[in-house]
């Protein structure tokens, strides 16, 4: 560096950020702060909300890969055997849809509870437990579906169609178990009143996605198997 003595930097302690296109604000930065840097900090979305969309994107890619594998495999050879889906799957779908409804009810109860409205006798976690229960019923129902299918002689390796049935339903069930873990965590945090809204939102989003994913898988299996 040269040995000239520089003037001290001009520092304005009341400096506001310049309103320029390089600053914050506008659609470029996903945060409508309109050039005000303080607002950017306030309005940055909670990481859990962004994070869950990222996670759901990855899960979607996984099931997209399995879907394309199914389509290609079906067309690859003449050994695809159709079979009718076990009836319990349709019942299970109803159970999972119901669990989404109960989760939404739970969220409203929890929101009003955390917002300060505490009436006696209403456990804010009650509907969360119902959702948890329905989720467990779903997983159990999937297990029964597998038993039903194997009773008909369709095992994992029997036939490519049955292979995909097991792989897709097992992959989904594993993710549902993960969702149950998330719900349990929410219930525990609620019990210690340290539950953040973003945690509850992220967990619900995940659960509803499992629902939508299941409906998609059911349609896929019904159409292709």
């Amino acid at each position: 560096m040269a040995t000239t003595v520089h003037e001290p930097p001009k520092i304005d302690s009341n400096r506001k950020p310049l309103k320029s296109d390089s600053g914050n604000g506008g659609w470029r930065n996903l945060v409508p702060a309109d050039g005000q840097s303080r607002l950017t900090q306030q309005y940055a979305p909670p990481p859990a909300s962004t994070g869950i969309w990222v996670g759901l994107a990855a899960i979607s890619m996984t099931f997209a890969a399995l879907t394309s594998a199914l389509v290609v495999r079906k067309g690859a050879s003449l050994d695809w055997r159709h079979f009718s889906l076990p009836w319990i799957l349709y019942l299970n779908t109803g159970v999972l849809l119901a669990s989404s409804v109960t989760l939404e009810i739970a969220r409203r109860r929890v929101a009003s509870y955390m917002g300060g409205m505490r009436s006696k006798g209403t456990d804010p976690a009650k509907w969360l437990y119902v959702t948890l229960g329905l989720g467990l019923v779903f997983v159990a129902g999937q297990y029964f579906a597998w038993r039903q299918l194997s009773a008909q002689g369709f095992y994992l390796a029997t036939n490519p169609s049955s292979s995909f049935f097991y792989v897709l339903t097992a992959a989904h069930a594993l993710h549902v178990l993960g969702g149950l873990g998330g719900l349990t965590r929410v219930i525990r945090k609620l019990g210690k009143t340290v539950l953040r809204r973003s945690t509850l939102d992220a967990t619900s989003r995940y659960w509803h996605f499992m629902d939508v994913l299941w409906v998609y898988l059911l349609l896929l299996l019904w159409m292709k198997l």
Partner: protein
Amino acid sequence: MHDMSAHAHVAHHAAPTGFIRKYIFSIDHKVIGKQYYLLALVAVFVGMVLSWLMRLHLGWTNLAIPGLHLLSSNGAPGDVMTPEYYLQLMTMHGTIMVFFVLTTAPFAAFGNYFLPIQVGAEDMPFPHFNMMSFWVTFVAFLVMIASFFAADGPTLGGWTQYVPLSAVGSASGPGQGTGVVLWAASIAIFCVGQLLGSLNFITTTLDMRTKGMSLWRLPLSSWAWFITSIMGLTAFAVLMPACILLILDHVAGTSFFVPSNLVLNDQLVPHSGGSTLLWQHLFWFFGHPEVYIAIVPGMGIVSHVLIANMRRPLLSHRVMVYSMGALAVLSYMVYGHHMFVSGMNPISSIAFSFPTLIITIPSTIIVLIWMGSLYGSRLRINTASLFALGMVSMFISGGVSGFFLAQPSLDIMLHATYFVVGHFHLVMAVAAIFGIFSGTYFWFPKMYGRMMNETLGKIHFWLTFVGTYCIFMPFHYLGLAGNIRRYQAFVDDYLQPLIPVHKFITVAALATGAVQFIFLYNLIHSRFWGDPAPDNPWEATSLEWATPTTPPPFDNFGGNLPVVYHDPYQYGIEGSTGDYVMQNSPEQIHTVRDEA
């Protein structure tokens, strides 16, 4: 119900105490970054030794390599490598290098360390997931290494594990039973680790930026890590189910990939009906974005290092970002160029060739921006900038051969020859390694508070630069002469004249490998006994140089998150004091863009 400041959403974790919490199971992104770097260092050493063994065998086929029988008594009876063992070592070389070095070091190591600091955050938003991502990757590495010790050794099907060879089990060769299952399990585990890492990178970039840090004020290295993490998220999520289906074909008797009427060792393979092309589609849908995952962080690092040493920003910051983004988007559309001669519909070849040629456009733009920015600049020459220049050189050299491979008509001759091997080693392996070296020499002072030895660094650079060209340039000649890849010996008449070239390459490879010990020595010696480094030895502008201490404290900024006032590369601004303005300096300056 939002908190007043976004950073409150991260668990304000207190400083860790105890050796285990500080250095082993740490949630500090800096420690995790260093752990990834160490993992990559071990992996690159293993991969390099494997390449030496391969090269020795290629130059001198019946050479007895002392001690080789200890690694595998089946694979190297009397210390002479069997043909199958060559393929097994080759597979492990490729797998370990691509996954555990090229995906780990530029992205997970440097990204984990510097992305949160460059955006002005205390840590990543999901620190426990981050810790898990490292340890999951570590377990994946152990599983991969374990396959060396399987009864008949690791898999021999190449890092691409094409079916049916990889799906029919041990009847198809040593290592094709347990070896494949371990390979696929390791990679599936690796995918999980990468997905957890990508989750953190994306959320950090989108949600954890400090006051004043808009997306366009991010340094180019942060942009590169962000773009790479999006690619990683989508690509690894496809590889994971592919590996699981492969495992099922092995252990569960399914036939996802195993075709009908396959006779192996005079016996009909029991599975049938599978699609062999399906594996290639699934694999390469991951595989092509993967090579961009390997190189884009290097591009970001090189841009960042060159700018600091040129003392001026690039010709166009935004075009560089858009070009890296274009590479990422296009990378999903070109994967079929690995499959031109696979037997897929030739019309698909046209459909993949076209975007492959299009993708050369953003790559070329990136190179031209670098070269145009360098022209007329007075680049400060230090080891970091030398390696950055070297990366540009390697990327151009390796990239040019891609134009030829992109055309199906030429690829018919060049596919599976050494031409391809030369192409990807230069454009991906060596270029990314040079990017890693550049980043190491640049950021070592910040990570450890000590400078690396410049003299040793320059010797390391020049010998490696000349050495890698000596190794990989002849590959193109070999490929054009018809030298098929993945052959363990050259017995055909037309290949005999090429053996002296192979011997030359082997000598160059051994010598260049030996040079890397200079780097290793420099790394270790400087870590403990290097000259103490100032906070900002390169007089750079980005936030990692604005930490209160060097190395940074556990929460990066000592509790006072910086406020960003400037674009990332304000060098040589007229009217400013000094020739650079740090991003968090409240000094008022006037640039074209600042004028409202």
